[in-house]
């Protein structure tokens, strides 16, 4: 059975099911009692805890809580704020299992919103998935649809490894509402309809971490993306179809592990690759895809649509800085 729901609802469903099935699952972070009030009411104040603005302390606490029997979902409001608490991820969550000689698991989920397109400025609109995905010892997932959001959250909670779960603010409607921007009829954000809402299986179908999916199969060019970028690619692909160019759209879903098999197969099929990455151009992900292809000796033309500098505030500047449909089309047009 499937039902229609929003991206945010899908995540909540996944957590709600996990909390019902396993009393060790709990969630904490800033404002979560309000943000996750459904979970609060359903599972009690002991398992949905507000935290002070002390990301290092409560993320660090999440690591050892996970090592001593709980399965915490720690919320970092915006992934940009991970900068004050990176230590917990880089030096602890990602390393403790290795330090123990592989003997001690860290079943931690770090949940954070990410991404831009709503004029919140360069310190609130980053995605940072390349930076996080470069750290060995953790997984990083970025769902682009409600079904994937539910399925990947389910897998993340079940995983014995630390998983960073990134949800894009343009998809999670309540973030735009919460941050106030969406409460006015006169302001519009470019929210991808198919990402913000969609069909989700009941019970939730878990999605394996590390598996990409082909959203559209074409023969002329392969667009590789994730998160909101996938929807921009699909839109670009529709427009390209009108011009007789048949595009494949690959949704990576996980930054780490990367589904190298799918990337290689779909790239080889068309011979032309455009990576559409909302992260910084040199943030790591888009380069890594070039490296995978080079190592596998897949001869392709390669180009990137990514964020080149600090994201500016003004809407027109912000629009140009983020990977948009026009930039994708321009990149495809340049293919020799």
């Amino acid at each position: 059975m499937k039902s229609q729901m929003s991206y945010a609802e899908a995540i909540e469903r996944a957590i709600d099911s996990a909390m019902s099935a396993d009393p060790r699952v709990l969630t904490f972070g800033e404002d979560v009692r309000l943000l996750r009030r459904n979970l609060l009411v359903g599972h009690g104040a002991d398992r949905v805890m507000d935290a002070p603005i002390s990301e290092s302390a409560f993320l660090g606490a999440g690591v050892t809580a996970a090592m001593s029997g709980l399965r915490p979902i720690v919320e970092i409001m915006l992934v940009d704020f991970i900068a004050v608490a990176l230590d917990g991820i880089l030096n602890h969550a990602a390393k403790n299992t290795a330090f123990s000689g592989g003997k001690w698991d860290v079943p931690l989920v770090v949940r954070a919103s990410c991404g831009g397109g709503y004029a919140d400025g360069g310190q609130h609109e980053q995605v940072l998935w390349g930076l996080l995905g470069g750290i060995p010892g953790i997984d990083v997932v970025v769902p682009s649809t409600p079904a994937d959001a539910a399925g990947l959250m389910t897998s993340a909670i079940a995983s014995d490894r630390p998983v960073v779960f990134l949800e894009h603010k343009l998809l999670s409607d309540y973030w735009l509402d919460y941050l106030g921007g969406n409460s006015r009829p006169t302001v519009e954000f470019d929210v991808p309809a198919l990402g913000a809402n969609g069909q989700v299986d009941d019970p939730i179908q878990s999605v394996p971490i590390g598996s990409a999916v082909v959203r559209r199969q074409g023969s002329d060019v392969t667009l590789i993306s994730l998160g909101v970028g996938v929807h921009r690619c699909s839109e670009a692909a529709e427009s390209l179809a009108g011009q007789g160019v048949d595009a494949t759209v690959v949704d990576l879903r996980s930054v780490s592990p990367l589904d190298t098999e799918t990337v290689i197969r779909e790239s080889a099929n068309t011979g032309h690759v455009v990576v559409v990455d909302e992260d910084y151009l040199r943030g790591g992900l888009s380069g890594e895809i070039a490296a995978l292809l080079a190592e596998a000796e897949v001869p392709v033309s390669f180009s990137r649509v990514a964020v080149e500098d600090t994201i500016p505030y003004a809407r027109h500047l912000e629009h140009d800085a983020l990977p948009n449909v026009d930039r994708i089309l321009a990149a495809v047009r340049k293919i020799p």
Partner: protein
Amino acid sequence: MAANSRLRELYESIVRIRAVETAQNHLWNVGLIPGEIHTGIGEEGIIAGVLEHLAVDDAIACDHRPTGVFTASGVDPTSLLLELLGHPDGLCGGHGGHMHFLSESDRLISDGIVGSAGPAACGFALSAKRLRPGTIAVAFFGEGAMNQGMLMESLNLAKVWSLPVLFVCKDNGWSITTHSRDLFAGDPATRAKAFGLRTGRVDGSDPTKVSAAAKRLIDRVRSKHQPALLHARCRRPDGHFLGDPLIRVFDDPVGQTREIGSPLPGSVRRGSGSMTEQISALSALGIRLGSLGMQRIRMNRWDPLLRLRCTVGTEAAMEIERRVSAEVRANVSEALRIAEVSA
């Protein structure tokens, strides 16, 4: 300067902040400002009371509510409004936006990372000490920010490096939708005292009291090269940011409560908590909304503008209000004209 004229200047500063913030809020409401806006309405008494004692070479690090400080520092409101409109002629060419007003000539910054004003003020104070002796740095932040590690570190750093910093904690009792007293152990002034800082506590809605307390601490910071902290309580009628969901519930309980204030019935049923747990969780949310409601009802008592107005006297106050509103209206018109939009 005569006490009366000082009072009038203080009032003028508050009126100007209120006028610029109100204009900003209006532009946001009609959608000309797209993203988040954190207003400082309700904390103008703290800003104006502190800034009264700063000199042109002093430096200031603000948090995510910078409009008041920038206005009171004399930055052209037109350039602030243009920045908010995302225009190239804005203070930062439209690159910074609301949380990132920066003005090099005024040594004024603001920032969207909670707690960062602490280290930033320390850095300004280090330059001040070496390059501009006798000048100081001020950090403005909320009580929630005092739980951020880097801010606590900077209290220690300022003390052991003998940095001339005035830390100003604007305590509205809330960090976004969380009641700070539930998550703050001890209180801001005691915490600062433990680092050896001089501290002052004041009702931030009483501008003359703020001014007196700030003067005492600033004189010391300036002359002794030692940090101090001013803890000032305040109330903000607009909540955390414009469009604050808690405020929306309070203003339109019928329309919004279902959506925001109360849980979806479905998930109450699905939850694994006991009935008692569920009820106590629900009532926690109720208390949160209720206490916010009481705060809004008592707002007049906490309004620094209204409180100072009585002291200044109606006639003088009206003259100031008329003059300043006209000036700010002119700023707004100019900004709209340059940006070629209408509101």
